[in-house]
């Protein structure tokens, strides 16, 4: 999780430099959702009129929608009127003063993951923090980036400082009416990240942000919008970790990516929200809509995700391949252990000519975990010369877990070339015994076999992230093989 961070300390010292949070410190809007609540959120964030109208439109659409039931996950009904839709950071006094006040189990996890000491404090929500609940302040390296014309800031700031860009692209990939959770997010999103890379600029560093759930009663509705203008390149990292909570929490984020001509966006996620305990109690409900649009010719969008957390994962990072010769990629590792459920995959929608897509999905199930891959490849009428390669592998650990695949192909142009490979395997007693006979412990053997299984995905991750992902996998599967 180490971003090169001279900034954490810096940011801590200049608390709330970016202003907009100071006056709303410590306040939480009472639970419940109505037009008034949305007006209040918009007002608190001092948004221009177009944003409020956009939110209200989304809300009115949401009211007419029903929660999707097609996913292969089971959970108790969510009472949307019991969720508080806005919470600003708690003031420093309300937060743990030092790591001594933090749940030791959480610290043990950081220890196992090798999170640097300084960052542990930040992640655990100690007062010297740079990342806050709902309102992100992690707008680091700003100076350096702005010299190149790169805009990387919180969503709220983008709304105020760059309304023309926001108005042009917000909802252009995931419309407000796209799905139940996206509509909800559009109505109430609290904050998130905004990134714009101007023409011809190659972003010189990996952009990253941490999201974190900190406030017991608040759902989390993040909004991310990344635009790569013609010929631009950006690699964006998203990492999540959540403190232990014993009640389910809703998380419904929306991420939109737009790539113009010859632009490339690489979006990597390591997701480690609290998965619930060994009995399946608690844990985050993660209903996320992530979609990228390859708007320009020769553009490329690449999603890489390592999903180890959450009680429920509902997530399909997708690509709309509109520009000629555009490329979409999806590399995924999803782990479910104990009582976790994941229904994840991707959609590749080929609209333009000679568009190409690659899907590599690795699902790992252990304990009572249920892991579903759901993928759709659509080749539309005008997408002549389109190609897709899909590979979908499942690994089972133990005999009480499950792996499911739901691939859908829809081809309307007969020049398309599509390949699909799938496999399901079990970590064999033979493999384990072979490793152990060479002196390798059971635990190391499992981690070695699992990491080998995920190799094709890990090599798509930036180096630091790959190392972290490997450790995370080890910790997530700890004790899953007796």
């Amino acid at each position, binding site marked *: 999780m180490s971003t090169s961070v001279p900034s954490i300390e810096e940011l801590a010292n200049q608390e709330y430099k970016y202003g907009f949070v100071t006056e709303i410190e410590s306040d939480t809007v009472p639970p419940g959702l109505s037009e008034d609540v949305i007006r209040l959120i918009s007002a608190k964030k001092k948004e221009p009129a177009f944003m409020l109208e956009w939110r209200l439109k989304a809300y009115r659409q949401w009211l007419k929608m029903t929660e999707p039931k097609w996913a292969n996950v089971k959970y108790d009904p969510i009472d949307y009127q019991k969720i508080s839709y806005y919470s600003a950071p708690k003031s420093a006094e309300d937060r743990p003063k030092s790591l001594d006040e933090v749940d030791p189990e959480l610290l043990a996890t950081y220890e196992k993951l090798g999170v640097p000491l300084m960052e542990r404090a930040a992640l655990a929500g100690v007062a010297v923090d740079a990342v806050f609940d709902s309102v992100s302040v992690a707008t680091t390296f700003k100076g350096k980036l702005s010299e190149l014309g790169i805009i990387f800031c919180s969503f709220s700031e983008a709304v105020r400082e760059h309304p023309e860009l926001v108005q042009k692209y917000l909802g252009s990939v995931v419309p407000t009416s796209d799905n139940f959770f996206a509509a909800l997010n559009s109505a109430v999103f609290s904050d998130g990240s905004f990134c714009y890379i101007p023409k011809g600029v190659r972003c010189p560093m990996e952009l990253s942000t941490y999201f974190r759930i900190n406030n017991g009663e608040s759902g989390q509705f993040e909004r991310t919008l990344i635009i790569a203008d013609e010929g631009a390149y950006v690699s964006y990292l998203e990492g999540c970790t959540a403190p232990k909570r014993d009640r389910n929490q809703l998380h419904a984020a929306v991420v939109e990516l737009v790539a113009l001509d010859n632009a490339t966006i690489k979006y990597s996620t390591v997701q480690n929200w609290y998965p619930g305990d060994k009995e399946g109690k608690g844990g985050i409900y993660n209903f996320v809509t992530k979609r990228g649009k390859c708007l320009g010719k020769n553009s490329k969008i690449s999603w890489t995700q390592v999903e180890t957390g959450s009680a429920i994962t509902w997530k399909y990072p997708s690509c709309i391949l509109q520009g000629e010769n555009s490329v979409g990629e999806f590399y995924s590792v999803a782990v479910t252990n104990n009582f976790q459920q994941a229904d994840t995959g991707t959609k590749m929608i080929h609209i333009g000519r000679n568009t190409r897509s690659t899907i590599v999905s690795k699902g790992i199930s252990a304990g009572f975990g249920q892991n579903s891959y759901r993928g759709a490849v659509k080749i539309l009428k005008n997408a002549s010369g389109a190609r897709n390669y899909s590979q979908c592998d499942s690994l089972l650990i133990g005999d009480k877990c499950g792996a499911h695949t739901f691939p859908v192909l829809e081809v309307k142009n007969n020049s398309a070339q599509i390949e699909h490979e799938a496999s399901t395997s079990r970590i*064999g*007693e*033979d*493999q384990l*015994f*072979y*490793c*152990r*006979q*060479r*002196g*390798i*412990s*059971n635990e*190391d053997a499992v981690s*070695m*076999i699992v*990491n*080998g*299984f*995920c*190799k*094709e995905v890990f090599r798509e991750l930036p180096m630091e992230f790959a190392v972290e992902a490997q450790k995370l996998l080890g910790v997530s599967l700890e004790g899953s093989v007796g």
Partner: protein
Amino acid sequence: MLEIRNLQAKAGDREILRGINLTVKPGEVHAIMGPNGSGKSTLAGVLAGRDSYEVTGGSVTFLGHDLLELDPEERAREGVFLAFQYPVEIPGVGNMYFLRAALNAIRKHRGEEELDAVDFLNLARKKMKLLEMDDSLINRSVNEGFSGGEKKRNEIFQMAVLEPKLAILDETDSGLDIDALKIVSQGVNALRDKDRGIILVTHYQRLLNYIVPDFVHVLSGGRIVKSGGKELALELEDKGYAWIDDTVAV
């Protein structure tokens, strides 16, 4: 170094070993021969700690340890090596990465310093020459896509790197053509050492032309029914396993 006393074991409900007695001293090479189903591979598996077998009686002492009390990885770290009849593929795990992890686990157990990637690779390259192994092996996953012969060679290569005190070779000759058999045998012979015990489990005498044993034991019906010098293997080759069953009242 190895004392097997009245060892009995079963797989499921089936009794397979019915009282094995065998002593292996440092420097000795013992061949265990016998017809299919006589319990040869079970014996190898029990010594290595494979949990699909249940030991129902007897004892095994290895360098002062009660071997049967140790986990498979502990046995390996104490110096027991099994060359598998069917080496296992581990996709995505580099052959060298795997072997270094194994070597370092053993070195750590012995209180020796772990080898870094550079030192390890130097060591591995030396041993690869011994087995005439292709350089491409360095970049491949453990046994993945290896031919039958390459897998067996890889087993002996691992043995050369790990330098066990007791090596058990389970049907190492099966599936090898004559050239590969020669190379593998050369490798094993190079590892013969006054401090190292070797148990060769084989169905055919042919391997013993290349690796000449000090002792030959014939296993039948879960017992060692005949022991002798290397000439016993030739006699067996000549007369077939039926001869044993005829001469020994079971």
